[in-house]
């Protein structure tokens, strides 16, 4: 489990993290979202032991991360601006990482040559941005980390490679119980892979939930009536409603089965529960709470 407890970080008067608190459960794929400048990269650099907090704690399974090699050995990171030695190729970088991470898997490194269509003897500096990102994934995944921290990981990758990379990541999560913390400013990117989501803005973690928890408690219904829309039964917690012709869409909070049973009493022509997108969940969860959620997700 990764934990940030009331972390404060100030850059020459600018409060980049303002009592940020979040928890990444073990084995989770945690999506951290927020607009530019929300503090996502800053908190990620704290989780990787690069930044020292002004106050607060960064813990991995209860152990402090900063200046703790034993803990950092269990973490691999792919930052937004991945660094490599200018004259190095992937093979040389792999030897470097193998020396740093005892869990580095050379067998996997060889196998991954099939996955990534790039040469491991070509200097990395001569590769395109997308190829460099592939190289970063190649090396990070060979480290076999318990915790993988990714900052805007798939920027620059083509759609096929994105799918490939996510597939590999989720395979590690399923097989090895790897915990993944991934930041993005785009909710749609994370929608298919994350099981936990945290939202940051202005240095604070505004909200964090498991996706199933959110989806279990919020229901989106499409309903059509033969005539005029009847009065909805009492006791339903309607968060949002909209209509297009005779089709009405409701977002309701509560148990899915109970809501469906209650709505059936209104004798609709059509009653269908449809999946909520992450975007919708956050809009409706935070809507009206004076947060700039639209700015965050759009």
């Amino acid at each position: 489990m990764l934990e940030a407890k009331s972390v404060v970080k100030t850059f020459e008067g600018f409060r980049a993290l303002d009592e940020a608190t979040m928890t990444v459960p073990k084995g989770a794929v945690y999506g951290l979202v927020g607009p530019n400048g929300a503090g996502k990269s800053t908190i990620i650099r704290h989780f990787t032991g690069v930044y020292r907090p002004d106050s607060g704690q960064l813990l991995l399974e209860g152990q402090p991360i900063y200046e703790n090699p034993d803990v950092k050995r269990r973490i691999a990171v792919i930052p937004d601006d991945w660094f490599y030695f200018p004259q190095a190729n992937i093979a040389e970088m792999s030897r470097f990482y193998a020396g740093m991470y005892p869990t580095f898997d050379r067998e996997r490194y060889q196998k991954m040559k099939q996955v990534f269509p790039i040469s491991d003897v070509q200097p990395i500096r001569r590769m395109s941005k997308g190829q460099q990102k592939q190289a970063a994934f190649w090396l990070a995944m060979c480290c076999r980390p318990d915790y993988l921290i990714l900052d805007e990981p798939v920027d620059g990758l083509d759609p096929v490679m994105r799918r490939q990379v996510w597939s590999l990541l989720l395979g590690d999560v399923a097989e090895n119980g790897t915990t993944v913390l991934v930041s993005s400013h785009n909710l749609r990117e994370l929608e298919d892979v994350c099981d936990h989501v945290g939202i940051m803005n202005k240095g604070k973690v505004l909200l964090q939930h498991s996706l199933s928890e959110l989806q279990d408690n919020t229901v989106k219904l499409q309903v059509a009536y033969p005539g005029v829309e009847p009065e909805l039964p009492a006791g339903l917690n309607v968060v949002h409603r909209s209509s297009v012709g005779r089709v009405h869409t409701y977002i309701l909070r509560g148990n899915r089965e109970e809501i469906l049973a209650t709505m059936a009493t209104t004798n609709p022509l059509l009653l269908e529960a449809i999946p909520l997108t992450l975007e919708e969940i956050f809009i409706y969860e935070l809507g009206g709470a004076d947060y700039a959620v639209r700015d965050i997700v759009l």
Partner: protein
Amino acid sequence: MRFGTSSFKTLLLSNWKRSWPLGFGYCFVLFFSVAIPTWSVGRWSDRALLDMSDQLYNTITVMPVVAMIAALAVAMVMFDYLMKPSAVGMMHALPMRRSGVFAAQMVSGFSLLTAGNLFIALCTALLASTNGGVPLKALWLWLLCIELEEFFFFALAACCAAVTGWLLGLPVIYVGVNFMVLAYRLLLNMMAGAFYKGFSGMDQDQITKFTYWCTPVVKMVQSTEAETTADGYMNFVRVLPRSGLNTVWIYAAAGVALLALAWLLYRLRHSETAGSAIVFPWLRPIVCYVISVAGGLAIGTLVFTLISRDGTDRIGLVLWQIVMGAVTYCAVQMLLQKSYKIWHRRTWIGLAILAAILILIPTVIRLDPTGYQRRLPEAEDVHDVWISGGIIDGLDSKDPQTIADTIALHALLIDGAYDDDRYDSRETQYFHVTYTLKSGETFSRSYSYSIEDNALKTALGKLVNNPELRLRSIMEGREDYGTDFTGGMVYCWMSSADEMLLTAEQARALYDAALADAATPVDVDTLLEEYSSYHPAAYLDIELTTPKGTYTLRNVTPASTHILALLEEYGITRAMPEAFEEWNVLGVPYGDDVVNSAPAIEDLVPSSASMG
């Protein structure tokens, strides 16, 4: 900090692999500046081993410069990751402590230099062996010196790297730290010269010593300069002075302290400061003021010198220093803030503080809180005095009368309103005095002044007519040569005439004439007139020989009436007219009137036999 860890070794190997071109370049330079010259001097020599040894000792002297540059280059390679946010992010995310990373970088850098030095020592030994032997002691000392020097400079460069997040800032800070004290010393000397009347450099030797110790490369070069010593009959060899090696050891010890400081600063610095010119906020104002004050003093003085007519307007100088200091301050602020938009309240306050400092420096100097300008020794405290300038020939004297006369003239220069800024007068005189006190302390003063005051002219006249000074002004030679003359010679290098030989009697007569001239008081105005003219001494060599040594008559001027009378009598003025023509052309009276008006020698000195 665990040196044996896999991470440490990995980083070490990675650093070596990345920096081999630097190591190659370093070896290349040393090969052609150490190994080849050493081999070359021994190649055709019949004392090859000694010559190669001498060459190595000579090389040791310039090694501090090589060490200073090499250490900077290696530090720039080893710590360049601190200057890039992405690189520092990668390095500090590695499963290593900061101390471990720092140690790996330091060991990598220093081992790279050491490997280069060992390689060059080996090459030098191999090449030297082809000349018949290896100067092992010199080679070992060369290796030891460069290792210790590089250790010091590398630790210093690491300190500089730890305070900056800007790669180009590293050499700037490094050079600044290396030469800052010397630069400030020169600037303060310059300011004292402008504002202290009589300033002739700082008195305290301790300040000079401190300045050199704080300028390591200068101190090391001075200290390791090889000495020549006799090694058997007519066999001179070069050796490294013991003090030179001690100096290098002291710097190496200081390097340990600098290493500890660098490590501390490295641990304290935040990773997010990569890209900042100075990473510690508390250090920024210090850097800003140190550079701005130096820039104001140096550039302000330069601009003032270029545009000022006579360079005497002190207020103008200070104003230019403030203006140039402000310009420097703004430039430094722009660099530190990485923005042209620096015009906020804090900047204005900073500029006001800077202006106050730049006004305070000359004000304090002018107020002379240490009493520098008025310092005058008691005559009984003075061991000897060295005076020179203008109509006073350079003279080192222990004579109490000369010392008293010197102090009297010095006191008048201090007390009087003699403006040392006027250089336009024909009668501008210079006076330089160095007192060596009985306590061993020395101090000097220099004045330029215009003689328009009777008291000053009288004091100057008394000093220049002091018999000892006057005699030594006319005649060069030691008293213990005696008066047992064997002959002499007169030669005029302007004339085609051969040298004229003097008999023993003529030599003795000229000697007596010189004594008589020395005892004859001379009017200061006459001396001033002669000072601005040519006179025969410029063209004549008059030597009076004794078995113990040779006296040389010099400063034969129109005032040297007795000598001139004898030269006339011996036919020298006619035989060598070229020596005297220039004198006449310049309108200085010379001829029968002068010669005939000379008082008789016997009237002035009792007897030549009494001298010597």
